[in-house]
């Protein structure tokens, strides 16, 4: 079972997005998936199959911490939150992403100008 939109998400950005969403507060996996979709105005289709392995990987690297607690509906769920290490990582990756996208933007602009 493959997700048709999986390729829409550039390599390595899923972790960054998860960290960003998790920074909003303790969230369980399904909420993180929901939030990613809503915030990106449905542009980013998060491949749900990759979400959980990514969460486990980030937890394993110590960027996320997880606790079991009850949801509003009274069910037990695993809530992920950002650790201090995860926060530092998020900041570093955000900065580097910004630099990269600015640079890419500049290059794209320049080549548009050159085509005129």
């Amino acid at each position, binding site marked *: *079972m493959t*997700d048709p939109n999986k390729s829409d998400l550039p390599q390595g950005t899923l972790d960054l997005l998860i960290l960003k969403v998790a920074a909003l507060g303790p969230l369980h*996996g*399904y909420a993180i998936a929901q939030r990613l979709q809503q915030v990106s105005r449905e542009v980013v289709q998060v491949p*749900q*199959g990759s979400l*959980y*392995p990514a969460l*486990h990987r980030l937890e394993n690297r110590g960027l996320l911490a997880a606790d079991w607690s009850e949801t509003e509906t009274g069910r*037990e769920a695993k809530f992920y939150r950002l650790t201090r290490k995860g926060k530092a990582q998020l900041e570093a990756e955000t900065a580097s992403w910004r630099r990269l996208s600015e640079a890419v933007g500049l290059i794209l602009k320049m080549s548009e100008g050159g085509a005129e």
Partner: protein
Amino acid sequence: MNWWQRLMRRGRMEAQLEKEVQFHLDEHAAELIARGVDPDEARRQARLALGGPEQVKEKCRDARGTRWLEDLLQDLQYAARMLRTNPGFAAVAILTLALGSGATTVAFSVVSGVLLKPLPYASPEQLVTLHGKTERHGEQWGFSYLNFRDYQRDAREVAWLETWSYGGGTLSEGGEAEYLTTREISSGLFNMLGVPLEQGRSFLPEEDQPGTGPVILLSHGLWQRRFGGRSDVVGKSVEFGGKASTVVGIVPAKFQLDDEAVDAYVPVGQNSEPRMQTRAANFLHVMGRLNRGVTMADAEARLGVTTQRLADAYPRYNAGRRIVVRPLREDAVAEVRPMIWLLLGAVSIVLLIACVNVASLLLAKAVSRERELAMRVALGASRGRLARQCLTESAVLGLAGGALGVAFAAAGLRPFVALWPEGLPRAGEVQIDWRVMVFATAASLLCGLIFGLAPALRAPASDLEQRLRMGGRTLAGGSRKLHGWFVTSEIALAVVLLVSAGVLGKAIVRLAALDPGFRPKNVMAARVAISPGALENPEKIRAAWKGLLDGARSVPGVESAALTDIVPMRVGENSLTYWATPAEPPADEQSLALSSCVTPDYAETIGLRLVRGRFLNDDDRLGHPLVVVIDENLARHAFGDANPLGKPLWVPALDAGPVQIVGVVGHVRHWGLASDDYSTVRDELYYSSAQLPDRVTHLLAGFTSVVVRTNVPPLTLLAPLQKALGGATGDQSFYGVVTMDGAVRDSLATQRFLLLLFSVFAGVAVLLACIGIYGVLAYLTTRRIPEFGVRIALGASSRDVIGMVLRESMTTVALGIVAGAIAAVLAGQLLEHSVEGVRRIEPISFVMMIPLLVAAALLASLVPAMRASRIDPVVALREE
């Protein structure tokens, strides 16, 4: 939570994973239901969106990081279960491997203990030996005492040099006289090596000088044997060499200066022999410890300055000489090094064959398990995962074989070391220690990898459906080629060992037929320690010699008796410089001749072959012209084709003037049947002990050996000879007995030992290869039963089928023989290079060995071929 906790809480984590994935599905479905989707449809959509809960869980497990360990545990359990359910297969595989790895472990223990382990001294890497080297004579270990003292003094800024030499004397303390093997050492030797004494102290520098009170160090063994290990022995005085010597210390049991067992140590500086005062007598070993930060090249350079000074001051003895500095360990084991590596090489081949055998067994199993593996791939196992599991299985097999092999090695190590000809240096350090364990473990894992690779790489990939449908029944083709290669490589390896054994056998046959230069049958030689009381003056020494001859001749059964200082093929030599022209050539152009000081009966007693002129006789004594008898080699070197009889020869150690050549005898292979051809000193001369000047009688008295020819088996005369040679005062000892037959035989001990090893290994290799061929063919023919059935049904006769199977097996065997022959030529060169007396590989070695192998291979193929020919086509086709 660390990886260990995670592993231990695997069950809980699994439950949580399940719960988390279920929660997601429920939430998603609930949301869809809230939007009005039918509940069943909602659940289906949720599952679709997630992409299969099991796959997601599997990926989460992968992400956890302890995955490999969990898999390993699982694989190990699986492997153990597989071995348990196939006990026959497991036993054959493990036993084969254990034989191979046991032999390899023994060989590596020897490599490790003898070649790799550092010497048991403090900072062993700083320890070196010194050798003199000249263009003409190559390297020589000997230094004269005066030269040593000069080097020792001059080298102080680069190294701490000490020296030792062989010695011996009679201990006549409490009870019967006993000859002691000793070492004469300089006072700082033990301190330089960093060896603390067991009791007492080492020699003081002031004791290492002539004219001081005699002192002695006892070995642990002598102390226990003769003095009952009493601690009050230190400080006591014992009668050694006719002098009262004070025991100052006990040398620890495990200390070993060279290969020989030593009873006692005395200071070399107290030696009052004339050779201590001449730069001509090179009899000292020099070893040293480099100062911190000094390299061997530095030390050589500094010693070179002294050598230059010595060459200027005493050109006669030092011209053209330079000093070579080498690590001490290299020196101690130089002789056995090539043999040890040969041994390791040979056993590695056996181990490789064992690996190939197990590999073909495993491959056969893997092919039969194809369906099972295909099923697992279909159920979602990745190809890498299956390959890893195959490798785990073979690693378990390899380790089990290795563990049993180490047990074999532990049992066989001591007997093997004891079998080593002429004693293995550093034998005490050959043990199964951590180095060996690391090696054995690594080797077992490597073997596992080697034979696990083929099945692992076969883990099914693409044509799953086909494999599942075929059920692994008729698919013999895929592995056939690989199985063929296994047989080929086994044969090739076996050929290498077989031909090597053939080469060694051929060499021994050739060497044993060589003329040693004397007639060894019924001849015996022994060293004699002359009564200390007789050593006082030359007259007494000559009387003692005469007494020895008379005593020996008086024993019934003795045909003739003679005295000599050196005995062919026994340790000990005396090389003298000589030249044949009146003008003395420079030191580095003078020739050396192995010189024996003998009584006239020597030629007859040992059985020299007289070529020209006469041997020494009773008229050759003091006051008559000094004469020598030379061997054919010396005659050819010095005089070419000219007749040497009556010609003068200059031998400065005998006389200042020339001596006259009165006879030529056949060359004696003094260094051993094989080694003689490789020796740098091969000229020989004989001079009469009756013509020895007074000044050297004392020197030679220390090296007296008696040789007797008997008309009964010589060893039966030991007791009467012992009695007859006891001397007037009964304190003469008789030791180091050899029969010349034994000496000739022992001179090929190394070659025989290697032949024995290679024959055993070649035998094992052929046996394993045959088992391998049989196994492979039996398996392949079973797989091809349907095919044979069809052929027989279509009219093939049983002869056709047998021919088909045999042809196929012979093709792989022939390929293996060709590949093996090429490798064997290389192995032959290696043997020629490292074993004395081995000549280049000869076609006969192949011609003798190959048919043997082909016959064995044919035999191994015949049973499966016959079975194939008896297939009932009806049964075979129905099976299909």
